[in-house]
């Protein structure tokens, strides 16, 4: 177990190092002179030189990289060109909004995916199964930004039930918060629900044909007890992994969803920083997103191996 943990940690560390290299080179490949952007249009040559001097933009690229990594490890990602706020502060302000959105949409996804997935596995090849399959195909194929626009059209413009956009903090006004978050969460949750539903169905079908399920039936347990106590518990383990792997897609989805519903979260921050050429902010935000993904998957893998010893051994063998 310890060997596996160390191996897994080492792989994550290497991945993080490669990520930092990609982000650093990527941002430096954006056309345009960062000094010019920071100084504004009216700066003269002397002003530009001063800024280059101050931010070390004239130093050799490797020097700049290691300085940036060194500061990043200590939590200093520089400051936004536009607002002069530190990147960490900006992220700390925006991230909770997106986290709320993400949690709500995972909740939406699980509430749809698990019952429907289990039902379609238990009632395999019946009308229920076909309906569930159709539902998941719908979720996979509908572009979520269009679904968002359609929901606004129906619930806000036509019926006037829900506000079309904006954000109110939960602690200020919980009701206003939820009425504004419900549509974005649903939009973000549908694609996730489709993926999770398929995974739930597949792994439940596999579990239901296992020997221990037959044993449970033959010792006289009621169908309900077998399903809830034996099958679902084991069938949902792979669903957890898929959920971890889907975090990236969820972040990407948040970018578009927040754009449509004008939610001032992390996703909108990414688009804004790209459009305003706010290099330190782009660099910091992308680095944080990718690192978070690596950490989440590390946690998923480790917790997964704790739950299931068979994977632990197989995982160590394949990582070698």
């Amino acid at each position, binding site marked *: 177990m310890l060997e596996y943990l160390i191996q897994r940690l080492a792989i994550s560390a290497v991945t993080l190092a490669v*990520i930092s290299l*990609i982000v650093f080179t*990527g941002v430096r490949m*954006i056309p345009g002179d960062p000094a010019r952007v920071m100084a504004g249009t009216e700066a003269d040559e002397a002003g530009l030189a001063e800024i280059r001097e101050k931010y070390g933009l004239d130093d050799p690229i490797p020097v700049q990289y290691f300085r940036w990594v060194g500061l990043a490890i200590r939590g200093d990602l520089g400051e936004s060109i536009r607002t002069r706020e530190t990147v960490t502060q900006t992220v700390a302000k925006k991230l909770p909004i997106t986290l709320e959105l993400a949690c709500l949409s995972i909740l939406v996804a699980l509430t749809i995916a698990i019952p429907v997935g289990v039902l379609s596995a238990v009632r395999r090849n019946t009308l229920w199964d076909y309906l569930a399959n159709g539902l998941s195909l719908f979720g996979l194929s509908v*572009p979520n930004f269009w679904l968002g626009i359609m929901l606004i059209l129906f619930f806000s*413009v036509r019926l006037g039930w829900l506000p079309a956009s904006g954000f109110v903090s939960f602690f200020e006004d919980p009701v206003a918060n939820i009425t504004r978050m419900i549509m974005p969460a649903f939009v973000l949750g549908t694609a996730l629900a489709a993926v999770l539903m398929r995974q739930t169905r597949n792994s439940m079908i596999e579990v239901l044909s296992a020997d221990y399920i037959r044993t449970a039936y033959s010792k006289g347990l009621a169908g309900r007890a077998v399903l809830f106590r034996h099958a679902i518990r084991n069938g949902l383990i792979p669903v957890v992994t898929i959920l971890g792997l889907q975090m990236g897609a969820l972040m990407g989805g948040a970018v578009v969803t927040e754009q449509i519903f004008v939610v001032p979260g992390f996703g909108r921050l990414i688009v804004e920083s*790209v459009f305003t050429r706010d290099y330190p902010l782009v660099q910091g935000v*992308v680095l944080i*997103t990718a*690192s978070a993904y690596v950490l989440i998957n590390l946690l998923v893998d480790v917790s997964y191996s704790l739950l299931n010893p068979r994977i632990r051994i197989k995982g160590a063998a394949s990582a070698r």
Partner: protein
Amino acid sequence: MPGDGGAVAAPAAAVLREARVTSLERAWRRAARRPPALAGAAVVVLYLLLALGAPWIAPADPLRTDWGQIRKAPSAAHPFGTDDLGRDILSRVIYGTRISMQAGVFSILLAMAIGVPAGLGAGFYRGAFDQMIMRLTDAWLSFPFLILAIGLVTILGPSLTNATVAIGVGATPTYIRLTRGLVLSTREEDFVQAARALGAGDLRVMGRHILPNIASALLVQATVSIPGAIIAEAILSFLGLGVQPPNPSWGTMLNAAQQFLETAPWMAWWPGLAIFSLALSFNLAGDGLRDWLDPKDY
């Protein structure tokens, strides 16, 4: 013996012909068992025809503005209505098919062109090369697909070509992983070992023995990733990072529609329905193709 040879050859050819007919027939019969997949494939073909024949099919010029026809509801003259500049939405949706198909198909071709050889090499040679490719893939996959694409388009500049490249590069690691996994299991098969024992070189083993055996899995993956790429193009264009106005991309059309939801909701219906139906058809066809190519399903 020449006479004998001819006598044997004729029935052999007949048997061969018969076998071909029955295998074609059987393939069709197996396909016909899946009406949803066939319907999906038919719609994909229909969209392909729309894309190729847009200039002949579209009733109007997709770029021609008409100040007398601004935001008109669907009517006989404009079955899908007109947009905020008085352009015919039906024609714009038809021309938009070209952009979506182009972005969807070419980006995935690009991803395969990079991903399949890289995965093939990594899985075949293992060792340090494999480690390097896999660590790079891990890092690549840690960037959410869309955020990676947004980043790349920022570097390259917004345009259809650059959006296609960005989507393709974003999809590449999936193909590296998939190919590598398939190669790892295939290279241990007896027929691969036999080819090596007969003295086949690395390239011959990879090209003639491994690749044909993993091609169907790659084809299925391609069919199911094209809808994702189509939606990604629409999203990039929607955000203003893909096709630039006035060119009719479904994404840019939806972007414009967002400002007129109250007065001209039809502007938002059609481009979205087009993306949805095309993505759904590709998914249906891909699911069917997966079952159809599965040797266990006879």
